[in-house]
């Protein structure tokens, strides 16, 4: 990684760094609302993106994350609410005056221009001298490790190369904010993983404030400094990947980010800070906040990550019983699916890192399941939700 960084030329980095003095808030939205006809695409969204951070907007399609990105870019105007970039209100600023770098899902490279002309476009619009444009374009292409393809047209480049040209084109103008709209979704899996690393490295190196839209929770967890999880036009939770994964604020976030098992259980006890859930022979401590208003004996749904479930012989002390139905060998771990009556969907997913899990718990075996760790969460039951 260090050798990569050394190869890259530092000029761009210093240009961006020069802009990053001043406050620590790069983008701020206050109660921003946007409707399309009857559809509320965004409902009173409030969001603060810190200078230099990489924030992911994560959510299923139609959740409003792209609307949010287009509002920041200026392609859409908010119905209500305030939008600030670098402390200046930009509600009425047209996109071409916002100093935004944007990478589109399909890259939108100009097909009638060479790679170098694509990258230099923003600089030419700023009426920079020809030599300066040439130098900065070369720097930007070196930054994304694409030197040597300057004269090629977009259709002569591979998907990964187009992606890099698009990134270079957005970065070369030293944008105040870099916006990435599902930029990796068109790439195959292995290329996507390496581009994730690369985008993260470049982002760190330049310190450019970045908003990354994705529906892929794995991508969000691995890339982000912070994640904003959105559903149905609303931001449900903003936090670090670990916070989002370990302490999701509600059922939707818990179900969307990472794999999760939902077990039907009952509330054992509850006070101001902690509660316990009784499930089979186990009593599991959980945070009491999401269960506010519930009484001991009420039904509650226990949310447990697959790696927090452990298999054992059946017995009195286990939380649940089940029958092994499928093994999925994943290399570093094994995913075991169990049929279990307490699971909300009828099935449990147990992630075991034991090398002999497949032989020890064969298909058809009756097993006991115990819950471990302090990260279990419980929410009041929601009958319309499986």
């Amino acid at each position: 990684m260090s050798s990569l960084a050394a190869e890259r030329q530092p000029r761009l980095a210093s240009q961006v760094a020069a802009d990053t003095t001043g406050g620590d808030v790069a983008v701020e939205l206050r109660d921003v609302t946007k409707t399309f006809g009857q559809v509320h695409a965004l409902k009173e969204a409030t969001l603060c993106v810190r200078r230099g951070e990489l924030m992911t907007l994560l959510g299923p399609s139609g959740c409003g994350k792209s609307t949010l990105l287009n509002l920041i870019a200026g392609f859409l105007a908010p119905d209500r609410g305030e939008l600030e970039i670098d402390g200046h209100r930009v509600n009425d600023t047209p996109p071409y005056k916002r100093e935004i770098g944007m990478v589109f899902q399909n890259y939108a490279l100009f097909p009638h221009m060479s790679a170098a002309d694509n990258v230099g476009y923003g600089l030419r619009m700023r009426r920079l001298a020809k030599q300066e444009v040439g130098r900065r374009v070369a720097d930007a292409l070196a930054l994304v490790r694409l030197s040597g393809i300057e004269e090629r047209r977009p259709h002569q480049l591979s998907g990964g190369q187009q992606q890099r040209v698009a990134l270079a084109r957005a970065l070369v103008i030293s944008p105040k904010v870099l916006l990435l709209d599902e930029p990796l979704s068109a790439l195959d899996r292995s290329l996507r993983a390496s581009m994730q690393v690369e985008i993260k490295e470049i982002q760190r190196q330049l310190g450019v404030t970045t908003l990354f839209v994705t529906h892929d929770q794995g991508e969000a967890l691995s890339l982000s400094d912070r994640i904003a999880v959105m559903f149905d036009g609303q931001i449900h939770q903003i936090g670090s990947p670990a916070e989002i994964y370990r302490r999701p604020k509600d059922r939707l976030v818990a179900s969307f980010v990472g794999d999760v098992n939902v077990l039907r259980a009952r509330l054992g006890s509850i006070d101001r800070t902690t509660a316990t859930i009784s499930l089979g022979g186990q009593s599991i401590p959980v945070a009491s906040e999401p269960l506010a208003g519930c009484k001991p004996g009420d039904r509650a749904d226990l949310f447990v990550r697959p790696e927090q479930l452990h298999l054992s012989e059946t017995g009195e002390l286990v939380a649940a019983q089940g029958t092994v139905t499928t093994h999925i060998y994943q290399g570093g771990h094994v995913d075991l699916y169990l049929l279990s009556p307490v699971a909300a969907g009828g099935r449990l997913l147990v992630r075991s890192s034991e090398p002999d899990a497949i032989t020890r718990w064969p298909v058809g075996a009756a097993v006991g399941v115990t819950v471990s760790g302090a990260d279990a969460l419980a929410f009041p039951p929601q009958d319309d939700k499986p």
Partner: protein
Amino acid sequence: MTSQPFLRIFVAPGALAALALLAALATVLQYSLRLYVPGSLEAGGFTLANFTALLKPLYARVFLETVWISFLTAALTLLVAYPVAYALVHTQSRLTKAAILITAITPLFLGEVVRTYSWMAVLGNNGFVNSLLLALGLIDRPLQIMFTRAAVVTALVHVTLPVMVIMLAAALSHIDPNYAKAAQSLGAGPIRTFFTVTLPLSMPGVVAGVTTAFAWTFSAFATPQLIGGGRVNMIANLVYQLGLASFNFPFAASLSVAGLALTLATLGLVRLATRPLDKLGPP
């Protein structure tokens, strides 16, 4: 052949149609190479005289006039049609879209003669334009607009407009709107976005539209006949006069053949000149 069993069935009718068209063309071609016998509808023996006669200044002028009118019409139609097509593709309002479509496309269903008559009503000495200018006191006497090249070109632009609008709208609607968004995010205002991105990407449509308009206008007959009134003559008008007024079929045929050759040559030139533009346009 075996992989496409239906192809055989279409060969016979296809060949028949092609043969009929070729026969018509061959008839014109053979007439153009035969001697004119004054006072007779029959043509005489083989001669090249019809083609050498075409070189006379009188006829050469009509050829040049035709090229010039076709060029003016194609260029002006492009200038008028482009904004219309752009608005048609980019307006969000369905009502505006419908209004543009109806006003721009309906002339297509009226037929050339009806449209040309309507222009006579507008451009005539007692027509709309002159009445308006007189009423406003801008002129004392009606202007002579009819029977001028400007009047012919105006009417021809109207005739050609619908096709050009359709072709340009098709080209514009195939341009990914993200290109314009990308240009704007990179600092290009609406005007520079248009000239650096939208216009170059629509060039294939522009070339196709201009070529079609040019070829179409080249063979125009009714509009120059009615609006030009004999004072503005294009090739088709000359062919008509020679063939159906003087009954000089061989000379009319040689004019037609030369006109066709000129059209093809011009289109070939346009094609060569616009080859560098092929690289433009959405992939």
